């Protein structure tokens, strides 16, 4: 006749799993990486001349080594950058001193006037990374707002809620037109 086996003492089980839990808490980190994604231009072949760009199609943002801003050779403040960039890229009144637009056939959107404007960002070697990122952030904000506006008028949804095809169409209509010059070597360390 088999005896009844006594119940296993499992009170230390919780201790063991607590230990494991503590270990994993120590070696792992929860914070996910956030940031701004960009694409670098491929290296230029040396014998190719840079294409001519008309002055109305370019908006120069310069940052000096003291983190001060110049928009098209005038002093500017970071708070105004987003609105200036939106005005430049959008050119809602078709003014002659702001960029030209090229009507382009885009799937889902039909014919859309794509701006030829390029924001040229130049920074000094002494500019702080903080300021540089603030500028990039403001420019991204301008582009994101324009994309949001377009997608709400055309699709009735925010840009982030669009499906992939719609998003591609909006991306073609409002590209990330930021060009970065090689940094100048004056001042700073």
């Amino acid at each position: 006749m088999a005896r009844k086996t006594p119940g296993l003492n499992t009170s230390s089980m919780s201790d063991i799993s607590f230990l494991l839990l503590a270990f994993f808490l120590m070696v792992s980190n929860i914070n996910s990486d956030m940031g701004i994604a960009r694409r670098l231009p491929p290296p230029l072949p040396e014998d190719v001349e840079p294409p001519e760009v008309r002055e109305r199609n370019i908006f120069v943002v310069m940052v000096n080594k003291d983190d001060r801003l110049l928009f098209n050779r005038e002093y500017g403040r970071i708070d105004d950058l987003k609105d200036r960039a939106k005005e430049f890229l959008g050119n809602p009144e078709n003014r002659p001193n702001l960029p030209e637009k090229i009507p382009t056939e885009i799937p889902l959107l039909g014919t859309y006037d794509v701006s030829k404007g390029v924001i040229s960002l130049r920074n000094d070697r002494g500019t702080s990374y903080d300021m540089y990122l603030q500028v990039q952030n403001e420019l991204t904000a301008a582009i994101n707002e324009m994309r949001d506006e377009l997608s709400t008028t055309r699709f009735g949804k925010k840009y982030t809620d669009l499906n992939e095809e719609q998003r591609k169409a909006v991306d073609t209509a409002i590209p990330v037109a930021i060009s970065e010059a090689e940094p100048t070597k004056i001042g700073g360390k």
Partner: protein
Amino acid sequence: MARFTGKKAKETPALNMGSMSDIIFMLLFFFMVITTMRESSLYVKIIPPQGSEVVKLEKKSLVSYINVGVPLPDQQKKYGTEPRIQLNDMISEVSDIVTFVELERNQRIEADRPYITTAIKADKQVRMGMISDIKQELRKSGALKIFYNASKGARKK
């Protein structure tokens, strides 16, 4: 009253701890799923700048990190007090980036290689000269998808 006081006080029964381990295991799995392993310890101090338009970095397995910042106090004897670059576990020079990118590329399978992103994790005090040098090296080595690490912050008004 006498009926109650006369009796001996009953002992409270022991709490059943059997399900305790289940609960803790559940917690354990929860944390294991939502976290990522810390890859390498940092030798440089990084306080990322803040931005309001930051997005999440997708596909972590296809990301290689370049850390830039001033060496930590206990490393300063060895590496100085000027901002340095850390690739994987080593403090490196700008010229090492090309080899680093090549190594990272070879670790991934062929189909994934076009999607490799290089995340630049830099301290906000770092000067742009250094970042630009890194960007030029990345251009040279063909790692064109980059990502500026920043923490989420409110819009500055």
